[in-house]
């Protein structure tokens, strides 16, 4: 079997992609020196990024790759995920060197915890990479559940009361949600196996297989199942009102991990949702799932708008803005026209970039000010000019100010909203966006400008903390007015994959 | 504007000069009539001329707080007001300078003069001047709508804001019977009283800070400047009277230019204006100064009557 398996270069790439974090995790466990484990992690994540880019190129040429007789399946959609994961993963590993280094110096974490951190980091990357690659939906589910467990471990790194509480809630809610999702998966599986009476065959749960058989599924069953899927994966993807774990977990985790959680993990869960969205679109037309997506998305936007205005904690505010943006993605997906889906996928990337930028900068800021409270943080631009500037850019980008990248995807979303004649939804979205704009802007201005409360020495926190932000900011600027050609084609292919189902609605 | 002969320009200038020169006379006439109706002898009707000449000859005292605004205001005021006289037909149905500007320009020139007068009132650091300017600000601001509404009515009825057009078409049709114009007339009369600082708006004859508006602005003036101020005030009044009679009592304009016709026209003009003046003076002796904040009621009356005029036109 293996000689056939490794015949293609992609299979090698995939395997190495999956093995790299595992190996580095093992290395970290074995040799416990601070410097070394840091470098190992950074290098491994860099390798992951590079392999991801290679995979991307090969996917660009041959639209979809099916290897290990259908355990792993990659198409443009998963390529987008992989690229996002590996990019943010690399940058946050780079950032963690500085961030965790400081925590280490401040004796907030000891050596052993540092080791655990980097182990967790690598495992986290591994599990997340497994999600978009796996073709078998059961494995995908397991991977997503695994991400929960690993990230809980990472949140549990500190023994503060807050982190205990956050991780407990996160564990409980996410697991419950995912069990709902599993329920849905089983139903889909049943529907599939009923169709070609292939009970208990490993391929019965393959996405490719399901998509093929989708048109023959029993519509009511599909509806029933999709609701479970939506609620389940929606919980993990932070769609309101199942988002409740999100602000706690994101605010209590170490900043690099918050970046990963917000920027990538949510997208992974949403990816799972998308796969089933496609199946159900194939089977009963996209109208049904689109409506649900729009409803949940708008609820998320509304709740995020409400919560951001009164927010007192920087990272909680950012977390709620993640809820908002997941809402935007799902609404934009739900509009179900090419432009909207394109916008949604673009938004996945943009949001990942901007949100990790924000989490990095806020991490440095809260380290500098030694508080996460918005009220006590002011005059950043004076105390730490570069970080402050980055934070400003990130903030302006996240509230959808041109010429930054988020604006483009939101522009696409709203255009699609109008052109698909969901006027009410679009109007609501605009309303909530303006509210969020006002509230977030208020906090942003207060934090960045004005004079700092207490006198503190001027200066940023080291080059390694600045470097990732600089990279991200440059991406933000570039993507603001121009999406690179390969990315365009990639996103277009992915949108086509999703849109196919929409044809018979 | 080349379609007028040199003679006509001469006549136009003559009309303007008539207004400028005769204006103190009208003041004198009014004073005389007031005095008579108050059972006083009063001074002769040429007294204003003597006053002006006397003042022109006097040295002047200027406040050390004041700036060039204060010093040049009389000139600006006089020039703007006197230039307005050039657009007013007196005995001809038109003014050859009518092409240059219309009634709006006349209003604008008045406003220019008033603007500087108010500034001059503020320029000397006394509280009197400020008081005057403040009240003048209010009155003029409120007067503006009334004025424009009236102009609107007139423009509606006589097809233009160009004074020559207005007067000539007014001359063509004996229009007095139309109610709309009647209302315009009432409005215009009120405006005239307000603009020229007559009772019940303003009482120039008492230098009592409770009553005065215009006088308190020019309180600091003396000599030449005072003369110019007084004179330009007289000219403004004359122009308004002339406009009034031009528009509403349009008989005996000179049809074809001849010496006799012109002299008759001039006589008629003087007769008309002095009649109007005496009527005004008569009214003035019959009313008392109103409270400042009731002045707005009068102006509102003017506005509403001109609005009614508008509506009458469209009905």
């Amino acid at each position, binding site marked *: 079997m293996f000689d056939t398996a490794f015949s293609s270069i992609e299979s090698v790439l995939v395997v190495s992609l999956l093995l790299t974090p595992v190996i580095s995790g093992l290395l970290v466990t074995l040799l416990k020196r601070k410097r070394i484990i840091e470098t190992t992690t950074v290098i491994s994540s860099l390798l992951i990024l590079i392999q991801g880019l290679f995979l991307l190129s090969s996917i660009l040429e041959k639209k979809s790759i099916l290897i290990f007789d259908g355990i792993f399946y990659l198409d443009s959609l998963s390529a987008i995920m992989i690229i996002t994961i590996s990019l943010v993963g690399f940058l946050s590993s780079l950032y963690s060197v500085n961030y965790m280094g400081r925590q280490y110096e401040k004796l907030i974490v000891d050596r052993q915890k540092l080791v655990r951190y980097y182990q967790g980091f690598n495992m986290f990357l591994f599990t997340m990479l497994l999600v978009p690659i796996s073709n078998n939906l059961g494995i995908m589910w397991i991977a997503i559940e695994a991400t929960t467990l690993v990230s809980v471990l990472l949140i549990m790194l500190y023994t503060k009361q807050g982190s205990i509480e956050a991780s407990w809630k996160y564990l*409980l*809610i996410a697991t419950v*949600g995912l069990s*709902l999702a599993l329920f849905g998966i089983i139903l889909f599986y049943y529907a599939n196996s009923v169709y070609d009476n292939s009970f208990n065959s490993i391929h019965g749960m393959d996405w490719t297989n399901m998509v093929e058989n989708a048109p023959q599924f029993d519509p009511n069953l599909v509806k029933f199942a999709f*609701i479970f899927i*939506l609620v389940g994966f929606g919980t993990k993807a932070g769609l309101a009102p*199942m988002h409740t774990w999100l*602000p706690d977990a994101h605010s209590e985790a170490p900043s690099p991990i918050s970046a990963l959680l917000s920027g990538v993990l949510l997208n992974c869960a949403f990816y799972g949702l998308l796969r089933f969205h496609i199946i159900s679109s194939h089977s009963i037309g996209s109208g049904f799932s689109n409506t649900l997506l729009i409803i949940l998305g708008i609820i998320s936007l509304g709740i995020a*708008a*409400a*919560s951001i205005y*009164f927010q007192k904690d920087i990272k909680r505010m950012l977390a709620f803005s993640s809820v908002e943006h997941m809402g935007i993605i799902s609404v934009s997906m739900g509009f179900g026209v090419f432009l909207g889906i394109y916008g949604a996928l673009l938004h996945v990337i943009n949001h990942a970039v901007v949100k990790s930028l924000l989490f990095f900068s806020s991490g440095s800021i809260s380290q500098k000010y030694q508080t996460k409270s918005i009220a006590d943080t002011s005059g950043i631009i004076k105390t730490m000019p570069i970080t402050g500037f980055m934070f400003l850019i990130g903030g302006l980008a996240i509230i959808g100010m*041109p*010429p930054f990248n988020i*604006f483009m995807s939101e522009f696409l979303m*709203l*255009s699609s909203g109008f052109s698909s004649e969901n006027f009410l939804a679009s109007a609501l979205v*605009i309303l909530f966006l303006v509210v969020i704009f006002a509230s977030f*802007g208020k906090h942003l*201005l207060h934090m960045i*400008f*004005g004079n700092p409360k207490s006198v503190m020495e001027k200066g940023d926190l080291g080059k390694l903390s600045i470097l990732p932000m600089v990279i991200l900011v440059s991406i933000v600027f570039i993507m603001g*007015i*121009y999406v690179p050609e390969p990315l365009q084609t990639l996103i277009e292919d992915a949108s086509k994959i999703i849109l196919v189902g929409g044809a018979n609605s | *504007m080349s379609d007028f002969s040199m003679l006509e320009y001469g006549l136009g200038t003559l009309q303007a000069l008539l207004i400028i020169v005769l204006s103190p006379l009208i003041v004198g006439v009014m004073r005389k009539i007031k005095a008579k109706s108050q059972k006083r002898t009063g001074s002769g009707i040429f007294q204003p001329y003597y006053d002006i000449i006397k003042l022109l*000859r006097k040295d002047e005292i200027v406040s050390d707080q004041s700036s060039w605004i204060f010093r040049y205001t009389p*000139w600006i005021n006089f*020039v703007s007001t006197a*230039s307005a006289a*050039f657009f007013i037909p007196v005995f001809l149905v038109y003014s050859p*300078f*009518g*092409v*240059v*500007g*219309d009634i*709006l*320009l006349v209003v*604008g020139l008045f406003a220019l003069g*008033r*603007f500087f007068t108010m500034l001059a009132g*503020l*320029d000397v*650091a*006394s*509280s*009197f001047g400020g008081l005057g*300017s403040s*009240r003048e*600000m*209010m009155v*003029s601001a409120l007067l*503006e709508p009334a004025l424009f*509404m009236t*102009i*609107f009515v007139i423009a509606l009825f006589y*097809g*233009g804001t160009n004074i020559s*057009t207005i007067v000539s*078409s007014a001359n063509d049709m004996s229009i007095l019977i139309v109610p709309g114009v009647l209302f315009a007339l009432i409005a215009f009369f009120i405006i005239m009283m307000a603009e020229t600082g007559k009772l019940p708006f303003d009482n120039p004859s008492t230098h009592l800070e409770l009553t005065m508006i215009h006088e308190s602005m020019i309180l600091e003036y003396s000599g030449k400047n005072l003369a110019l101020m007084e004179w330009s005030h007289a000219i403004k009044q004359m122009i308004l009277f002339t406009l009034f009679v031009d528009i509403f009592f349009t008989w005996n304009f000179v049809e074809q230019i001849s010496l006799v016709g012109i002299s008759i026209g001039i006589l008629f003009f003087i007769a008309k204006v002095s009649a109007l003046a005496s009527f005004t003076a008569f009214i003035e002796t019959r009313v008392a100064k109103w409270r400042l904040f009731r002045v707005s009621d009068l102006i509102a009356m003017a506005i509403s009557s001109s609005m009614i005029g508008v509506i009458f036109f469209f009905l």
Partner: protein
Amino acid sequence: MVENLFLICAIFAFFSLGATLGLLTRGHKYHSYFTYIPSSFASFLTITLSLIIIFSESTHLTFFNIQHLFDFEIFIDGVSAFFLLIIGLISFAVSIYSLSYSKKFDDKKNNSALGMLFNVFIISMVLVVISNNVFFFLIFWELMSLTSFFLVIYEHENKNNLKSGLTYLVMTHLGTGFIFASFILMYTQTGSFSFDSFRDITIIPQHVKDIAFVLAFVGFGTKAGMVPLHIWLPKAHPSAPSNVSALMSAVMLKIAIYGIVRCIFDFNAVDGSTDYVWLGMGMIIIGSISALVGILYALVENDIKRALAFSSIENVGIIFIGLGLSIVFAAFHLQALSVLAFIASMFHVLNHSIFKGLLFMTAGSIHYSTHTKNIEELGGLIKKMPWTAMMFLIGSIAIIGLPPLNGFISEWLTLQSLLAVFQIPSNILQVSLAFAILAFALTIGLAGATFVRLFGITFLSKGRSTKAVNAIEVPKFMLIGKAILASSCILLGILPFIGMNLIVSAFNLPYMSSSPFETISITNTTDSNFASLMMPGVLVILASVFVGVFVVVRIIGGKTKTIKYGTWDCGFGNLSEKTQYTATSLADPIRRIFGVFYKPHNDIDVDFYTKENSYFKKSIHVISTTKNVFDEKMYGKTISGSLFVLNKIRKIQSGKVNAYILYIMITLIALLLFVGFGAHE
């Protein structure tokens, strides 16, 4: 075409040069020269470009297209060129002004940011005017807002500036939302993001267009400061450094007007059909209200820059009146009148940008040398800074529309087109427009009062504080900058046809006049002369009268001498600066009459020598306050209400994990029921 492209590139090159140098040479001795000389060059080039395009016989259009995800098209026709001219002219003057003005911040802050943003701000405005694609239009539009926002909060140590900055940002974003909605609505019909497709009248159904126009009007109106969406304007403009507030008030508002002209006149709104009467009337009504409200608040304002900002609202209102009239006339096939009204409003656009720029720069100079914007503390500046006073006087005479300056011309034209409404064949419209005349006239009157107050209190009589007493005249560059605009005020006033020809050929309207010395004449239905105006003639008359009276006075009066003496004090002695009229008391009568807008309130507390005897007062303190009805009633209520709701919503994050799981279950069941019912249908 090509040389135009070259010019455009040169403009960008110079502006960006200014921006970069501004950043690089921070703290350098000649920093301001490095920053603002390039921008003045660029502005000059902008003027040239616009003039070339306006007066090129061959074609009015310049068109380039750079491919991207969306097309980035540069499209300069007469309309863009006209507004380019405004941008160029004002920013030229302001750049020169800034050479000295920016030194104000030298010791306090690094003004590298100021210089950079200043340049970027101007570029963004230029780009807005010349971009021909929804996406890029919006990007540059928001870039303009963003840079101006940063300039507003430039002195961010002051909390109020931050507040007003936020208000500005939010309001302008709201406006952008409307604009966006309008454009996207058009896009859904045409399926293309390029403005060219929008120009195609045939494919867009009427009702969609109506909605789109209304949305666009609201959106751009927000930026232009139309009541009641104006509240940001009097907050933001004063907070910015004065050179920037000059740009914002004089140019940025005009960019909003540009947007309206683009959408409503270029995208085929104004055709012969009577469908657009309501649109025109709406504009006129809103315009009148804005004019009135703006000037009413300007009248009682003590902060000189705020007062100027309010008067900007007023002037925008006047411009709207003109545009609306033009639409209405066009709807009734009164071509000539429509053109007249349009010219009037465009001329007012030009004029307002000139004198408002001038006035803001003067206000900046006052702030520069006295460090205060509160006119209650000023006074007597005419002796300290004579040239600035002269400029301010010219500016005020122009803005309140007195002859012989440019303001008079545009207001005259507007008024003429208002007076011509009797040609509209509809009584209701005529009567309602009569009310518009009423509002307009009242506005003019109040404007006069406002500027008497501003000039009188600021420059005349005694200085009311040491700040005013120790003031000195500002450096020469600031004077030059102002002089440029002041002289153009006078020029446009005396030879209005310079401006009018510009407009006529920019918007290629009919009725081009040959020489600038011609008479503006409007004929009525029986084409006798309805009204006519010839400013050179007026000037001649004024001059001759002056000469005449001078001679007469000399002949009669002979030589007299003038004696300087103290102001008459009723023999009371030592008049102090306290005894003279204050700004508040000057405006008091009007404040009382229009009390409904201000809710004026006086707190008087008297204390007596002895409690029992209330005749001998020791001291009387009067605190006189006016409120802004729109801020407190409209916005205050709305915001507090919505916050209440939000606060209720966010409570679902209760911290109880059981509740959270319950939400999940409820959502699940709700959706199941939703679908269950859906299935059973």
